[in-house]
């Protein structure tokens, strides 16, 4: 599609600029290896333990909730465009009410189960 060509050009320019500036400045930089410099910052102390361990399960729950609601949102976009351009608005409106109603039940369920609370 010819209209997307500007997007492609911009992505190419961004890649060129970022990668170009990383590679282009390589020659200007000092490079002195040092075992202490290579350590991850941890308030000046030697790092303790591994970074990629377990973390709060809440982050996974947020990700799952996001999936559910984002799919819902993706369904509503075609609905909204049709709704503002078609004549049978009452039918479409009731349709959306049913759809959001079903979603609302899930939302209330998640709320009552405590999935939306960050604290335990």
């Amino acid at each position, binding site marked *: 599609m010819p209209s*997307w060509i500007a997007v492609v050009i*911009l992505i190419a320019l961004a890649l060129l600029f970022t990668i170009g500036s990383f590679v282009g400045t390589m020659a200007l930089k000092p490079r002195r290896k040092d075992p202490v410099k*290579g*350590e991850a910052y*941890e308030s000046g102390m030697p790092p303790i333990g591994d970074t990629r361990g377990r973390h709060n399960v809440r982050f996974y729950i947020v990700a799952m909730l996001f999936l559910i609601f*984002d799919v819902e949102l993706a369904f509503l*976009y075609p609905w909204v*465009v049709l709704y*503002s351009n078609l004549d049978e*608005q009452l039918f479409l409106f009731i349709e959306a009410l049913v759809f959001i109603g079903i979603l609302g039940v899930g939302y209330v369920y998640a709320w009552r189960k405590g999935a939306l609370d960050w604290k335990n």
Partner: protein
Amino acid sequence: MDGWEWLIVAIKCVVILLIFLGAPLILVLVERWTLGRLQSRIGPNRVGWSGTLQTAADGLKLGIKEDLIPRGADKLVFWFGPVFLVVPALAAWAIVPVGPKVGLGRDIGLWAVDLNVGILFFLAMGSLGVYGVVMSGWSSNSKYAHFGALRASAQVISYELIMGLAVLAVILYAGSLSLIDIVEQQRGLWFIVPQFVGFLLFVIAGVAETNRVPFDLPEAESEIVAGFHVEYSGMRFAMFFIAEYANIILISAIITTLYLGGWLGWTIPGMEGLTGIVWFALKTVAFIAMFLLLRAALPRLRYDQLMSFCWKFLMPIGIINVLLAAGLRMAWS
């Protein structure tokens, strides 16, 4: 497409790139001056004429500093993390209309491309920006960066829903996803009037999406040092800055386009293009100023407050707002 159209598109893209690189330089400086004044200090005043070259000097200095890669880091992902942050931030600019069509021999729209999925493209690029943050935070092998990336991803995806909901109501009124159509539909009445609630939702979500105060938990200095970019240095660190400030300008431009009538305003006949750009710039600068002043005025939220504010307060309001707008529109017609 003939040769001239290719040339015009290429020129537009280069202009966008230049603005994309130049505006953050000015914005960082203005922010440091503003914050300095508001905190009873002077701010940068040495480099150049009373500090005007400060950010340019900083950028130059970052270019000649050593690039550290921490031991145990995933080198490839670490290297490309900032790239994934900058690319979507620049690509999203393709759809922003800064003015109406102008006739310079042929009709030239003051936008790079009029996509029929316009605003969806913006939301998609916003989602892609999270990848850069997660990639750089995860690959650093630093605990602060790790927590920053986790926080950023949870926060950005949550507030993206709010942004999507607010945009839904705008499309209800405009009947099109194309940003140029959305602006043209506001000739009678700017959408901020019928959609004031949606406007507030979008602004709040926009501040959260750009990780700015009061939603700057991913880089909360007092808790996790600098969050996802704590291990970065040199030119790669500069990319984070460019992306952050370019995103602020982008969000301000999109708010202007969706709710404040974009380039619309009083105009001199025959000069629509010029006055359009001036109006667009004025409205956008007003929102950028809001971002800067928020940083000086507000404290940071707590993380549980941030999440429950999104899921328990903004979410129901967003859904009810869409349904109300749909009902009102049906009652009208």
